[in-house]
């Protein structure tokens, strides 16, 4: 899209979308590092992930200030309006993803010695497609691609299947050895957090799609598979 006649307006919009992408980048590393910390039982790394969360919150607050100022001063219309509204929604989705990742890192620090490596790996297996979803949706945002957003949106049921599998596997581990119950409960929450992150990625995909084409992805098309 060509530039605005008022170049400062274009610069402000670019700054806002750069802010969103920066936030997305930090949140992306929070998920992968939280899961890395879990698998390798690296408590230092887990602690560090928790410390990144305030930074995400600060960027969200800053993006919101920029958005309020843009609406008040520029009276955005058309694609600009949709971009600004989407940025507002996406930043709060990313903030939630940051919180959920932080929560995984916190729970990692509380795990006791009864956790076996299969349990840790089960979470990691689920984290991989979730990280992909986030990476893909941020890519859709960066390129403004409705098509890429639609693909992410349609891939969420895959994560739901993963979640169901992890849920059953955890139950098996707990049944085998009741001493694992405390850690297993934490890990069920981790799996649930990852599933929620997948949902937030889907929401982001909806806003990217709305920003690009001005229409809403219909909720009817997407099959729901999560039965938990």
């Amino acid at each position, binding site marked *: *899209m*060509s*530039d*605005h*006649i*008022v170049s400062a*307006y274009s610069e402000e919009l670019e700054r806002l979308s750069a802010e969103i992408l920066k936030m997305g980048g930090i949140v992306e590393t929070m998920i992968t590092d939280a899961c890395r910390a879990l698998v390798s039982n690296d408590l230092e790394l887990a602690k560090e992930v928790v410390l990144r969360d305030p930074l995400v919150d600060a960027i969200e607050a800053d993006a919101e200030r920029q958005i309020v100022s843009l609406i008040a001063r520029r*009276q*955005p*219309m*058309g*694609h*600009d*309006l*949709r971009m600004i509204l989407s940025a507002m929604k996406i930043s709060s989705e990313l903030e939630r993803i940051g919180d959920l990742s932080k929560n995984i890192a916190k729970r990692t620090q509380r795990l006791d010695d009864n956790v076996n490596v299969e349990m840790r790996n089960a979470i990691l297996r689920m984290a991989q497609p979730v990280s992909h979803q986030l990476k893909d949706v941020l890519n859709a945002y960066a390129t403004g691609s409705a098509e890429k957003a639609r693909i992410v949106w349609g891939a969420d049921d895959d994560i739901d299947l993963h979640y169901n599998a992890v849920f059953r596997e955890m139950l098996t581990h707990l049944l085998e050895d009741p001493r694992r119950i405390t850690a297993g409960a934490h890990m069920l929450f981790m799996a649930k957090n990852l599933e929620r992150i997948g949902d937030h990625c889907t929401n982001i995909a909806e806003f990217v799609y709305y920003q690009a084409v*001005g*229409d809403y992805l219909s909720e009817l098309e997407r099959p729901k598979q999560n039965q938990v």
Partner: protein
Amino acid sequence: MDTTLGMSTAVDDNLTLPPATDTAAAPRIDCRNIKVFYGETEAIHDVSMAFPDRAVTALIGPSGCGKSTFLRCLNRMNDTIENCRVEGEILMDGENINDADVDPVLLRSRVGMVFQKPNPFPKSIYDNIAYGPRIHGLANGREDLDAIVEKSLRRAGLWDEVKDRLAAPGTGLSGGQQQRLCIARAIAVQPEVILMDEPCSALDPIATARIEELIDELRNRYCIVIVTHSMQQAARVSQRTAFFHLGNLVELGDTSQIFTNPREKRTEDYITGRFG
């Protein structure tokens, strides 16, 4: 509203009709294949669009896009410009207003107009309003005329401000009051349509807000067409928006659609400030 001429009743107390939002009803004005020429130059290229009753339609576009020229077709104001020729049909109640047997003076009482700069007559406030009803024979005697003046000023939201000084010159009012006086003057002859050519561009934000509030009230009774350079104003006051560019009607749609999700790239570029 009662569209028959020859009003003889006193003040119509029924000032609050239920708001009409059904823009799909039969259009008040239906323009078909309008072309406007200045000499050999075609300024408007084959524009067809309809204006719904009881709704505000905004015409937007860059300077020189033809929106004012098009607006002026609707009450044959282009007749007064030498070399200007209008082709196509403009139907009101099934009748082409460009037909030779249509009296342009009578037409302009049915299709009133408000201009960019308030232009009250150099007469009293009272006479500014009474002039039209007098020449069109709409009033039976002084009492009736008083009633029309009061009703028109009330509908234009000006009555309380001027009721104690009706004999004072209209030109002594503030800019915003003068513009409302001009709107009252247009209303006094019982129009069906009100055309507004940038009615707020000479007014401050408070006076502009008053006019916009008035436009919103008037839309319960009239078909209103407004040309404005302010996209925010078009977004605020209209239900339908038409975007003109280089003499073409590029896009016509519901105002919220035009400003949030225009279908045409030229519209998008214009409303987001990317033109040129």
